[in-house]
């Protein structure tokens, strides 16, 4: 059994389980899952360990009170993608607790779309609103429109010029040196994708909100695999490192892709 929840809830479970807590692995979800994209490889690794042997069980609480709106959006996408990512691991069953006393009703509504079974007040029932991963991903999508006054550069300016652009704008908007470095590499990987596999005619835009720096990369290309960047690259793999880097360098990364094009929006929190 693997439990990914807040440090506080881990502690409560440990005390309740007593000596049996040694049989359970605990992960502080707020530490590793700020960007919920980083949770899928944890479950994939856990399920892969157990696939040969006995069934395994997981508890995941990626949504906690105080999550920002973009984080909640990322959590909803994550919960849809988990169903697809772990479809091959039939030995794993996941339970996702939600704190009804502190989470707003509209967030609880979304739970039905991404969980095939829901238990309420002790009664377990098949979810009436359950959607396929594809349908769940599009069921809750505000358009990703950058503000008009965002700093903008064309993808066709090329990787080196775009790295200079990101370096100068991101540091001016308040990111520290190391976070600027993270952002440069993440944006570069998406630009490289656009130039190699896409149409190369898109744009990179950067702007700031009171608590974060955002970068959006739009391009005409199509990343067909919705799980790209969510699977740990094997040591001999040719591909799969670029988007993996993006997810591990950014506080949030939303990548929406269809035959009509790809929009990637990256978020880096500003230090309070």
């Amino acid at each position, binding site marked *: 059994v693997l439990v990914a929840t807040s440090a506080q809830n881990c502690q409560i479970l440990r005390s309740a389980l007593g000596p049996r807590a040694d049989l359970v692995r605990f992960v502080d979800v707020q530490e590793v899952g700020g960007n919920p994209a980083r949770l899928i490889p944890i479950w994939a690794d856990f399920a892969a360990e157990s696939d040969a042997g006995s069934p395994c069980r997981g508890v995941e609480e990626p949504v906690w009170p105080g999550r920002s709106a973009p984080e909640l959006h990322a959590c909803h996408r994550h919960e849809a993608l988990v169903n697809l990512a772990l479809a091959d691991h039939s030995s794993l069953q996941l339970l996702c607790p939600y704190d009804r006393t502190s989470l707003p009703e509209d967030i609880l509504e979304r739970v039905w779309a991404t969980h095939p079974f829901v238990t309420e007040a002790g009664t377990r029932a098949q979810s009436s609103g359950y959607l396929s991963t594809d349908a769940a991903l599009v069921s809750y999508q505000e358009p990703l429109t950058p503000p008009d006054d965002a700093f903008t550069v064309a993808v066709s300016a090329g*990787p*080196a010029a775009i*790295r200079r652009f990101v370096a100068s704008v991101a540091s001016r908007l308040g990111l520290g040196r*190391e976070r600027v*470095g*993270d952002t*440069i*590499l993440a944006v*570069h*990987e998406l630009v*490289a994708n656009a*130039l*190699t596999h896409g149409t190369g005619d898109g744009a990179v835009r950067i702007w700031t909100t009171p608590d974060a720096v955002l970068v959006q990369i739009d391009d005409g290309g199509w990343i067909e695999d919705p799980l790209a960047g969510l699977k*740990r*690259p094997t*040591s*001999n793999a*040719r591909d799969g*490192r*670029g988007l*993996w*880097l993006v997810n*591990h*360098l950014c506080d949030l990364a939303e990548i929406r892709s269809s035959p009509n094009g790809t929009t990637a929006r990256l978020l880096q929190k500003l230090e309070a």
Partner: protein
Amino acid sequence: VVELCGEHDLVTSARLGEIFDTLVPSHDLVVADLSETDFIDSTVLLALVQADRHARERGSKFRLQLGTEPIVRKALEITNLLDRLDHYPTREQVLAL
């Protein structure tokens, strides 16, 4: 020893791959010196992985010399390559038997 100075990305990684392809089959030890490197992307990581695989296949060594640029180390770390590739902090250590 192949010194990668400055920034390396998809523009230079093909050439880098060719250099490793030439050196690895004819040397017992090939070093990629990243101590003066400011930037590497996923295509450079792939060139390093492939050079390492070729060296392992023929029983020779492929090593990295690493500097202090955080994003270079981080790119290797996030993709599990710090565990996979032999790496050393100094030229003396990377060349030691």
